[in-house]
């Protein structure tokens, strides 16, 4: 090892925000590069999560990345932090396996490390490391024993690390450690601790350390930073603190020796169980051809397409991926769980033949190349939608089948302003009510703001904190956070990852609090490591469809095949009238308006409609030309025959991603891989400069290939530029169209069962009280919650020959499924005769009893006020169980309505809160929503939805409800500004503005008082 360090240093002990640091791996690398350093070792505490990002960024900045981790080592002499560095891909795998154990047990036993340390380098750690600690405790023989054991196992891969945190005595400690190393003949390295890119991040690092430790800034703790010393140092600063050139030279030499490439060249096909003697590709071929023969015999275009798809899958080496998806779908269906592929996979005939999707891509003209092509760099996605209620069963099955080779992907939870305010506010000692006010104050406008842009929310913070120092401090800390600052990891909603071998070789695994086995990398980072993921997405609508099917089976004895429902025009008709509530993907106000205009009557119409009301088509001005041509208000534009073949079925506009790819391929002559890269670049382009090369490429291609004039090519470019790739894939839209049709069909034929399922699963955007109004409109009675009749879920009950929906015990807020089950078990022994009987038999907590009583569960047995009186008495002990209530007036209808809404979110009463305001509204000159006519209008309603999408240029969209009628209120930015408080807080609003085309452009707003009003005249 050379005696002098080169001009750039190797920093061996850096931590990012994936460990105990405050900066991203990328930021640390940038800083290291700016200071001229050559190597950066990321050694996050108990984590390898930052590795992929480190290696990716390193290529760009020219610093050599290395990976390690800090962990606790449990030895006979005590438990100490050490740092392990990976010296190869095998070393990385060993480290990852060790960390998996540490995450489960808290520390790594010394024996495990002595046994498994191939290609691992051990650094003895800093202030809390065993050399410093044992020396300070004067336990020299213990130190000798430990060094000897480690030396025997690690040989020349054990290094004493020198540190200096600018604390009293650090210079002396460094000298002592160096002397110790020289005395024992051990190599030593300079290893200054790094936890932030720059020194001025010290307050933020300290505050976030307090957050991590769960303490306030006034509470001392040894893990807190005590100054700016953990900033990434310059060479000058580093050599000043550790003035031992040979220790820096050793660090550099070590880094040069152990550097290795982390990111692999190819994808790793997941494992699948195979019959003896069968290969994955052989099995896939056999299954696919057998399905083709059975379903599409004598159709050469299908055979040709299948041959092409199989060849692509073989070339990419991914047959296991398909077999795995098939296995998952088969398992789900065998348990009665709906499982349907979505996304680009639906464009694959192979996926269709393997029963992953009912969509026939050849008949629908879908594009396989959007899903898979030979030049593919990114992994294909197979996204399987499963009924959300039972998704866990499928995941459990995978865990049982694949064991250590399977885990859920992680999602990196990044800071948004509300969470950052909560965390930092707590650390700074702001009381909880004040923090809640701060979060509420952010409202819709700033909820999604990244903390580093907190200054934009300064006026709102000022409203709560005034000009107190806390405001300035919070703003300063927030402004220093990075965009995308990661707070913690949680299991991804659907990404399941499988590897050919144990997954802990790729990244540490951990059991999440929900008991799910999670790999500590997100899906992009997993993909970068070559791992294939399958997205098992829980779709509540599928659960609702399953549940409705179960209810139909129970009430009618009919089992519905939801994937093969007959096409009926009558099923589509409610859409034409705007009756969309509960219909998958079509129940938003925008889709409702579109349903009235488009009057869909086929699955393809539904697919077009679903794709049309999306940011891409809306922003690119696609909607109007599509509508006008579809409705015959404008003639078809003149298109080149090649473009006509691609865009003809969508009336000359780009609606789907596949169309964009085809246009690029057939129109501009790009191969499929180039076309896909073009689409991705287009969707990621942020500035006009990013678009320039794409524009040139397209114009050139269109001219050369199709001979388009400059103007014609420009027109195509404008369409492409507008689309930006934000749209759906056609295959995805078709998959969703089928779910939408199934929901329409069930609503038309079995409204009670369907609404019961919607209430149980809440798959859509509307609250239960709105679904209740829809039941009222459809003439489906809602039966009140009853301690003797309600079950666990809303269920259809026949009352006097008519189907109604019985509210479940769990509708009462505060009644858990577990508590409801206990009640149901007790009820098997006989109905409850009184509240006292219930109390005596179940001994419920008072909270549970009150929750049930408030929601009216005992209304059948005694008036609710009396029940509340009894439930309020302390139970058990020496006091009598039943005390006669004093005379109490019965609940008025209005009182009962609001009590129901509070206690269970909806009411069995056929009444809407606005019914209580009828007299007042008449006096105020408000027209009821269903009677509105085009022109200036004043109306009122309960606010049931508030949206302020970031893409809407400051506009907000509210939905006001009056009984079963709803109105979209469009609130321009100036009105939002002027009436901010009632818009933010008002439960019901009186609004004035211009009514046109089913929505009201609001000009004035008044809050309406809902509570304490007169009783309705009648029901």
């Amino acid at each position, binding site marked *: 090892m050379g005696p002098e360090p080169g001009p750039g240093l190797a920093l061996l002990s850096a931590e990012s925000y994936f460990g105990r640091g405050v900066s991203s791996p990328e930021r640390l690398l940038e800083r290291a590069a700016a200071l001229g350093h050559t190597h950066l070792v990321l050694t996050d505490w108990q984590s390898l999560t930052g590795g992929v990002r480190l290696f990716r960024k390193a290529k760009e900045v020219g610093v050599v990345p290395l990976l390690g981790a800090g962990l606790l080592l449990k030895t006979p002499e005590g438990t100490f932090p050490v740092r392990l560095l990976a010296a190869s891909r095998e070393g990385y795998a060993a480290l990852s396996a060790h960390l998996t154990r540490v995450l489960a047990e808290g520390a790594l036993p010394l024996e495990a490390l002595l046994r498994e340390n191939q290609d691992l380098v051990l650094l003895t750690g800093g202030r809390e490391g065993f050399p410093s600690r044992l020396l300070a405790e004067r336990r020299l023989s213990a130190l000798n024993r430990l060094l000897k054991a480690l030396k025997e196992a690690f040989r020349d891969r054990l290094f004493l690390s020198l540190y200096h945190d600018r604390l*009293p005595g650090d210079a002396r400690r460094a000298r002592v450690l160096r002397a110790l190393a020289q005395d024992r003949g051990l190599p030593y390295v300079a290893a200054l601790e790094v936890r932030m890119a720059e020194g001025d991040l*010290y307050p933020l690092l300290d505050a976030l350390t307090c957050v991590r430790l769960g303490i306030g800034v006034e509470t001392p703790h040894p893990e807190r*930073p*005590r*100054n*700016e*010393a953990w900033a990434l140092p310059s060479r000058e600063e580093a050599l000043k603190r550790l003035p031992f050139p040979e220790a820096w030279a050793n660090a550099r030499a070590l880094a040069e020796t152990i550097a290795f490439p982390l990111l692999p060249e190819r994808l790793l096909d997941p494992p699948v169980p195979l019959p003896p003697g069968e290969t994955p590709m052989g099995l896939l071929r056999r299954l696919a051809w057998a399905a083709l023969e059975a379903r599409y015999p004598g159709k050469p275009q299908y055979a040709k397409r299948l041959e092409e798809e199989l060849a692509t899958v073989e070339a990419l080496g991914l047959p296991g991926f398909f077999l795995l998806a098939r296995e998952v779908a088969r398992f789900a269906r065998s348990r009665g769980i709906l499982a349907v592929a979505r996304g680009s996979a639906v464009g694959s005939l192979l996926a269709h033949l393997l029963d992953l999707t009912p969509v026939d891509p050849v008949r629908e003209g879908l594009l396989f190349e959007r899903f898979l092509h030979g030049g593919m760099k990114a992994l294909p996605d197979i996204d399987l939608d499963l009924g959300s209620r039972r998704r866990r069963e499928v995941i459990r099955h995978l865990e049982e089948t694949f064991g250590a080779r399977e885990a859920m992907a992680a999602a990196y939870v990044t800071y948004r302003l509300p969470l950052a305010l909560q965390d930092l506010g707590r650390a700074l000692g702001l009381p909880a009510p004040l923090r809640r006010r701060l979060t509420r104050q952010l409202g819709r406008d700033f909820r999604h703001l990244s903390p580093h842009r907190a200054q934009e929310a300064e006026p709102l913070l000022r409203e709560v904190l005034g000009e107190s120092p806390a405001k300035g401090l919070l703003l300063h800390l927030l402004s220093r956070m990075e965009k995308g600052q990661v707070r913690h990891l949680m299991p991804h909603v659907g990404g399941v990852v499988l590897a050919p071998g144990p997954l802990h070789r790729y990244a540490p695994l951990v059991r999440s609090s929900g008991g799910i086995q999670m790999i500590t990398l997100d899906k992009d980072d997993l993909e970068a490591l070559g791992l294939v993921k399958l997205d098992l997405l829980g779709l509540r609508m599928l659960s609702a469809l399953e549940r409705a099917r179960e209810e139909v089976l129970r009430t009618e004895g009919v089992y519905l095949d939801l994937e093969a429902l007959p096409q009926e025009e009558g099923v589509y008709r409610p859409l034409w009238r705007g009756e969309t509530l509960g219909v998958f993907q079509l129940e938003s106000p925008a889709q409702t308006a579109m349903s009235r205009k488009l009057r869909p009557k086929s699955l393809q119409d539904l697919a077009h409609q679903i794709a049309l009301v999306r940011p891409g088509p809306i922003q690119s001005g696609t909607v109007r030309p599509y509508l006008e041509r579809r409705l015959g208000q404008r003639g078809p534009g003149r298109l080149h025959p090649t473009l006509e073949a691609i865009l003809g079925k969508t009336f000359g506009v780009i609606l789907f991603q596949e169309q964009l790819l085809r246009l690029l391929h057939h129109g501009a002559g790009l191969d499929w891989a180039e076309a896909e890269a073009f689409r991705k670049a287009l969707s990621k382009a942020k500035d006009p400069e990013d678009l320039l090369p794409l524009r040139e490429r397209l114009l050139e291609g269109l001219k050369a290939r199709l001979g388009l004039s400059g103007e014609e090519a420009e027109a195509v470019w404008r369409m492409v530029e507008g689309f930006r790739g934000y749209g759906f894939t056609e295959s995805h839209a078709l998959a969703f169209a089928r779910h939408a049709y199934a929901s329409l069909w069930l609503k038309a034929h079995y409204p009670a069962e369907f609404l019961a399922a919607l209430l149980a699963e809440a798959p859509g955007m509307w609250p239960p009280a709105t679904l209740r109004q829809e039941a009222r409109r459809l003439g489906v009675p809602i039966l009140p919650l009853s301690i003797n009749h309600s079950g666990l879920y809303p269920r259809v009950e026949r009352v006097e020959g008519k189907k109604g929906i019985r509210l479940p015990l769990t509708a009462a807020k505060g009644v858990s499924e577990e508590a409801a089950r206990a009640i149901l078990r007790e009820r098997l022994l006989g109905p409850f005769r009184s509240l006292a009987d219930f109390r005596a038999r179940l001994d419920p907590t008072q909270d549970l009893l009150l929750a049930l009583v408030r929601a009216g569960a005992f209304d059948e047995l005694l008036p609710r006020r009396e029940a509340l009186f009894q439930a309020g008495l302390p139970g058990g002990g020496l006091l009598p169980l039943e005390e006669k209530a004093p005379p109490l007036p019965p609940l008025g209808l209005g009182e009962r309505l609001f009590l129901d809404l509070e206690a269970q979110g909806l009411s069995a009463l056929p009444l809407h809160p606005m019914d209580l305001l009828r007299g007042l509204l008449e006096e105020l000159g408000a027209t009821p929503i269903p009677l509105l006519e085009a022109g200036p209008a004043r109306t009122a309603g309960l606010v049931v939805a508030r949206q302020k999408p970031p893409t809407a240029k400051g506009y907000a969209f509210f939905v006001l409800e009056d009984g079963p009628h709803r109105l979209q209120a469009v609130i321009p930015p100036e009105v939002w500004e002027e009436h901010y408080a009632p818009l933010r807080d008002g439960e019901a609003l009186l609004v004035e503005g211009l009514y046109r085309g089913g929505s009201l452009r609001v000009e004035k707003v008044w809050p309406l008082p809902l509570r304490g009003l007169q009783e309705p005249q009648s029901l």
Partner: protein
Amino acid sequence: MRRLLDTWRAGGRWWLGEEGRDYFLLEVAGGLVLEVFREGERWVLSRVLD
């Protein structure tokens, strides 16, 4: 001053607006050990150690 024995830095209570301080441990003539820190342009004596 006879010799500089040690230096360190205290980040200070940043949440109260305190600046960080550089501390110095000095041995002066007569064997007296002083702990001092810089505050702006002036030196402040923090402790005297026997």
